[in-house]
């Protein structure tokens, strides 16, 4: 009796490992079949894009649940120029930490979710030319008494999992106690509820939120120097990457990104910000 039970135990362990290994293999096989190739997208008749749904002004939804914002409108424009109609886009809401896994497992063709280009990420996915520049900063409550980055020592700082701020602080500031949430909205709510002394994130998101929420201010010092933000495709999908690069060039000529900036980002950052400090039109990093 006991032997039988033990056998079941070992069998179930083996089974699970087998299933897991199987998952890995099929995802790997997807590499060759190129699920995100231009042909596959055209055949399918829609472009599948991973976007943010809770990060105004870049990716968010209106009251009716339509995806809008700088990145999301750009995705619609891509669909229009690739497939002839801006409705031929399927939005998949992603979180910062799920962006790369979604590309790797072929759940989306393209990630257009305010993703900063970093060396580590370049090893995992292929970035197209950038659309923006961003720096990470820390938003702190006025009561916290934090004035410089050195003051962060021993403080509780909120980050959203998988953001550049999370990666930087985890690796370089072991003296800071990090509280990690999956979603930007959760992090902001936690900051508001006083669960941390500050929130480290891309500065545009912080500036835009702080406008509506008094009692918080940005630390002037930046965590890292400015870095480009770019759309990303699955590693090896040069076909789609080259198409996006060409498309960005065309859009640059008609200043489409500036148009989107004026529509969404200008109000959030204030009219005195020079759009060219934020937007990259010529495609150069």
């Amino acid at each position, binding site marked *: 009796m006991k032997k039988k039970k033990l056998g079941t135990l070992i069998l179930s362990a083996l089974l699970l490992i087998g299933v897991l290994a199987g998952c890995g293999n099929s995802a790997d096989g997807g590499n060759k079949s190129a699920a995100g190739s231009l042909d596959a997208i055209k055949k399918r008749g829609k472009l599948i894009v991973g976007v943010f749904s809770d990060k105004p002004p870049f990716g968010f939804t209106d009251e009716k649940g339509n995806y809008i914002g700088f990145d999301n409108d750009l995705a619609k424009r891509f669909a229009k120029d690739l497939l002839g109609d801006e409705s031929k886009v399927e939005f998949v809401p992603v979180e910062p930490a799920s962006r790369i896994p979604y590309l790797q497992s072929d759940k989306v063709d393209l990630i257009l979710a305010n993703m900063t280009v970093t060396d580590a990420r370049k090893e995992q996915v292929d970035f197209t030319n950038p659309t923006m520049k961003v720096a990470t900063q820390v938003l702190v409550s006025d009561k916290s008494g934090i004035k410089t980055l050195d003051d962060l020592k021993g403080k509780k700082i909120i980050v959203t999992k998988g953001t550049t701020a999370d990666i930087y602080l985890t690796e370089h500031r072991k003296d800071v106690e990090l509280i990690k949430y999956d979603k930007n909205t959760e992090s902001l709510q936690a900051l508001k509820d*006083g669960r941390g002394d500050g929130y480290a994130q891309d500065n545009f998101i912080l500036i835009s939120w702080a406008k509506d929420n008094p009692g918080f201010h940005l630390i002037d010092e930046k965590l890292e120097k400015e870095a480009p933000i770019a759309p990303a495709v699955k590693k090896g999908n040069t076909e789609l990457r080259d198409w996006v690069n060409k498309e960005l060039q065309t859009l640059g000529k008609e200043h489409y990104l500036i148009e989107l900036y004026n529509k969404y980002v200008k109000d959030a950052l204030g009219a005195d910000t020079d759009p060219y400090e934020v937007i990259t039109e010529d495609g150069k990093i």
Partner: protein
Amino acid sequence: MQLDTDFMTRHIPDFVHAAGLSLSIGGIAILLSLSVACIYSAILFFQVPILKGFVRAHVEVARNTPLLIQLFFLYYGLPSIGIKLSSMTVVFIAMTFLGGGYFTEVFRSGLDAVTKTQAESGLALGLSRMQLFRYVIMPQAFRISIPALFANFIFLLKETTIVSAVAVPELLYTTTSYISLYYKTYEMLLMMTICYLIIFLPLSFLLSCIERRYQYGTHGH
């Protein structure tokens, strides 16, 4: 697919630590839930007025709302009315709320399964209602409840994955943190699954052994 086994071995200590936290949260939640369920069962058995209604209401709410919603309500909802609880407090309240509800149902079905003649015979022998509950009904009901109770132990332990949502660094939180930092998706998911298997397979084995012992009289092995 090439697994980065070096990366996996390097992070074994973190996973051991996280698994320890998952287990302690689960273990404490089970003990708290058991205490709640015992008190509730007594209330239901003795038909205590008012309290009886409260227990029924709790059981229904606990069994019909998802744990994640209970956590979010306590963690993000309550601060708006000025009550700020720490993640750990929120986790224990929510898990005890959930576990208490489920365990009470388990005990209730156990109590119902004890034949009426047992209670009648006890009363005929002149036992007080308290003695009847303590010496006649409880021991039998408990034995009947064991299989369902153990299944619920495992259920509650598995529910600990959900507490990662309120930033408690247990196994799932650790896994998703590493995935988001180093993009080692398959490696970290494999590590997590192995950890859960190491915890749960021996545990269910142990529990079914105990179960068998207690059912000895009834099954006749």
